[in-house]
């Protein structure tokens, strides 16, 4: 147990996080003080005859700014409801293999004695579990690195004045609220930094800084006579980037567009259900890629490790290299190096250098996402670098890299795709999403829908969702726009594992066309 007395007397703790990670320096090597702390875990584990040990010492900072513009009951006057929070978290987790089993323990008190104690806890956990191990853990080899890496950025978001950020979201919210047709509007900006030090008994010592930037603006329209409401959102692509990214989001300009859309959406006719051609914009298609391809190609699911929670996969091991899941146009990559991807980093939580690998080639499923303790299970020699955790207190495991769809021929335009549709729907933004535990059957909504008739985009329609099977859907793809349309969207809230972990991941694509997909009319 953690001694509260020790805790309360630890007067230098606050200074420690800042000192250990501090401002990025020109050094290419980790802070020696971090290396000294990491060495405590490695040496304690060795003393206890653990066959492997790693430690992650992590400091998080999160800053969230929101503003909401609500109508006052009775007067209709606009009331501004802001919130600003700036939170932090600092701690470490130790992972060991002892008697062939994994053990893990974590604590928020970053001090040498506590690191040694927690390492002993992790070994005790591993030994207690060894009685019920199915097979000893076997790790794929990895080179030792001694390195420092950070998200490429020009302006650290945490050094930008809060006033400047408030100006951005207040302007966007005001623009979205303008006029009489909008009931309420809001905007937000948030930033997350992860200062992470990793040391392992392989000999690696890696210090990294990962930065993420998020924003959004929304507008709600209400028809009280019909007791009906609609909300339209603009969410710029979430990104690993510094504050320099924020001005390029054009929040205010897009706020004006969604204001017009939501009023039209509130009064838009419902869709006529049936088989229709769909043209899905990158702001929408990223989520379909994520659910149907991203999760089905996770090796831990295919092997059965997620059977009790997220589920398994229709892509069983025997299908690797053989199963057709899409048309010849479909080429999909797993990539932890793509510019601004939320899962982009330097090294994973196994100490494996970030990499890029094919998942689907010309429609055929070719590779799984893997980590060090899985590679041997499918006869592979090395990990594909997909190991990470959502916190210092969480166990690293196989998570998704950025998974992106290659663009089509350079000359193919969005207008070309639309021109080829007799009766279809153009969908922007994400809405409702649901897929089964083996990733066959899915249903997706969207944020905004436009009818396409006779090759031309028409007015908005409402109450749209489409249902399909993963392999039917991707084989129905007959057109992808060119590279100039390629955009990367993503989610900060991808959940997996027990206890559940939440991570960010991005999925890039160009607009794509899917033939004769089943469309239903929702409430």
């Amino acid at each position, binding site marked *: 147990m953690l001694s*509260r007395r020790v805790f309360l007397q630890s007067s230098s703790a606050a200074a420690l996080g800042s000192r250990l990670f501090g401002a990025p320096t020109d050094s290419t090597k980790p802070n020696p003080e971090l290396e000294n702390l990491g060495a405590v875990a490695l040496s304690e584990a060795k003393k206890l005859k653990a066959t492997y040990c790693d430690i992650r010492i992590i400091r998080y900072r999160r800053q969230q700014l929101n503003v909401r513009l609500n109508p006052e009951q009775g007067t209709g006057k606009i009331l501004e409801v802001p919130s600003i929070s700036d939170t932090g*978290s600092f701690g470490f987790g130790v992972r060991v293999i002892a008697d062939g089993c994994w053990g*893990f323990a974590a604590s928020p008190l970053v001090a040498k004695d506590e690191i040694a104690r927690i390492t002993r806890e992790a070994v005790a956990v591993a030994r207690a*579990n060894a009685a019920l191990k199915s097979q000893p853990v076997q790790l794929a080899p990895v080179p030792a690195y001694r390195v420092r890496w950070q998200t490429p950025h020009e302006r650290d978001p945490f050094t930008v004045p809060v006033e400047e950020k408030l100006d951005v979201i207040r302007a966007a919210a005001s623009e979205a609220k303008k006029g009489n047709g909008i009931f309420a509007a809001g905007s937000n900006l948030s930033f997350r930094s992860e200062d992470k030090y990793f040391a392992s008994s392989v000999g690696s010592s890696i210090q990294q800084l990962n930065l993420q930037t998020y924003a959004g603006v929304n507008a709600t329209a209400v028809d009280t006579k019909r007791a009906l*409401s609609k909300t339209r959102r603009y969410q710029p692509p979430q990104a690993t980037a510094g504050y320099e990214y924020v001005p390029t989001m054009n929040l205010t300009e897009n706020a004006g567009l969604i204001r017009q859309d939501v009023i039209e959406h509130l009064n838009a006719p419902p869709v006529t259900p049936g088989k229709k051609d769909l043209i899905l914009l990158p702001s929408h298609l990223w989520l379909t890629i994520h659910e149907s391809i991203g999760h089905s190609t996770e090796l831990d699911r295919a092997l059965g490790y997620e059977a009790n929670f997220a589920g398994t996969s229709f892509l069983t091991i025997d299908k690797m290299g053989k199963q057709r899941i899409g048309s010849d146009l479909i080429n999909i990559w797993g990539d932890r190096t793509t510019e601004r991807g939320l899962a982009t980093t330097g090294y994973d939580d196994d100490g494996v250098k970030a990499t890029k690998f094919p998942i689907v080639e010309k429609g055929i499923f070719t590779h799984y996402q893997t980590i060090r303790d899985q590679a041997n299970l499918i006869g592979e020699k090395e990990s594909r670098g997909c190991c990470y955790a959502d916190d210092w207190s969480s166990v690293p495991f196989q998570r998704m890299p950025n998974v992106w769809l290659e663009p089509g021929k350079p000359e193919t335009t969005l207008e070309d795709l639309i021109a080829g549709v007799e009766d279809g729907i153009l969908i922007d933004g994400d809405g409702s999403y649901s897929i*089964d535990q083996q990733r066959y059957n899915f249903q997706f909504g969207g944020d905004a829908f436009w009818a396409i008739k006779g090759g031309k985009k028409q007015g908005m329609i409402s109450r749209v969702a489409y249902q399909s099977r993963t392999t039917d859907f991707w084989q129905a793809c007959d057109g992808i726009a060119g590279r100039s349309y390629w955009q990367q969207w993503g989610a900060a809230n991808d959940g997996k594992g027990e206890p559940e972990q939440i991570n960010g991941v991005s999925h890039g694509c160009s607009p794509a066309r899917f033939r004769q997909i089943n469309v239903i009319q929702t409430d």
Partner: protein
Amino acid sequence: MLSREESKKLADKALSFSTFPECEVNVSSSEAAFIRFALNGITTSGFTVGQSLSISSVRDGKRGSTSVDEFDDRSLREAVQRTEQLALIAPANQESVPPLGPQKYPVIENYPASTAQARNQVMIPHIRAIIEGAKARSLVAAGYMERVSETRAIANKQNNFAYGKVTDAYLSSTVRDAAGTSSGWAAQPAVRIEDIDGVAIARSAIEKCLRWKNPKRLDPGKYTVVLEPTAVGDLLPRIASGFAARAASEGRTFLSKPGGGTLVGEKLFPDSITLRSDPFSQLYSVLPWGAATMPADRMTWIEKGVVKNVFYDRYWAAKVGHPATPAPGSLLLDGGEKSLDDLIATVERGLLVTRFFYIRTVNPQTLQMTGLTRDGLFLIENGKVTSPVVNFRFNESPVRMLQNTIGMGKAIRTRGMEDGMVTPPLVVKDFPFTSISDAV
């Protein structure tokens, strides 16, 4: 874990650094032990401790917030200063409410030491029972067991203070055949870890797996369903958001009355439906306060089919001249005495649903949801379960589910992947399944 005295000392220390008229703090400490297993063996396991102190400072309606997990004087002082600096920059919240003065909090403590202190040695026998049971039938077990415990304290400069402790345990398992053609699931949440029965979980999950062989493909459509308690607990808690008084009055929930106002007092559901919140239930371990640190209390949302209450946050309550109320939590749907088999016996043709998966909102106003059946869907014919059925996707709202309820059994506490509550199994007519899922 922080005691009441330690929590109070930390809260007072943080408040002592405050220079603003309003400052509120929330101190928490936590401990968790868990084991995850798959392929008939333990895969990951951990023991984690955590602590956090969150602070908000307010002056003239301008608020700044932060949280820290380092509790030394310097960290706390800097954190309070940071909130005050942020508040100086923040625009005034035009919907702000004054801080709560000293409140009378109920005595709620359901914190058995057996759960709060359990480690792997207590959990492993349950997991062994599942793994050995699965192996004996040449099946493959995966699952998860955890116990969590947490202390929490709230305090503000107006001398309000409260402290609470919660703990809970949970075991779930999915048992599949080696070929991956059949799957069964069972789970049990319990405040007292000694109530968890790994042998019973193993029996139930194994039986479902063995029964779900060569499932029939039925056409999508509307079916009478017998929803096991977990299936109800997956879907029904999503009704809670519709009970917000403000959103209902503003025309944004299923309780909005066309033309304005709410549907409180209207009989929207059958006589059998009574939905309540009961933080005093011994089936839950909860804190003595709820939303906005207001004292926890019992609330009735639906009584004998009539909408009795919507919940008023402090701002909206003041605005419309209604007392502020607790928000929905610790939910209970009243049941009867019938067993699951009794309910099945009442159905001429229908489907038995073990649980739902991946439920997401399709329409936030009507609360139409989509999701799928998983780990045990069976055909009922002439009052008996006759054969397994290939899984379905549904599109339905918990509102319509309650409106179409024609039978209910005995209530138990549930926890599925989606949510959980205390609920009976239900018989529901016209439940719409819209497509087939081949997932196992």
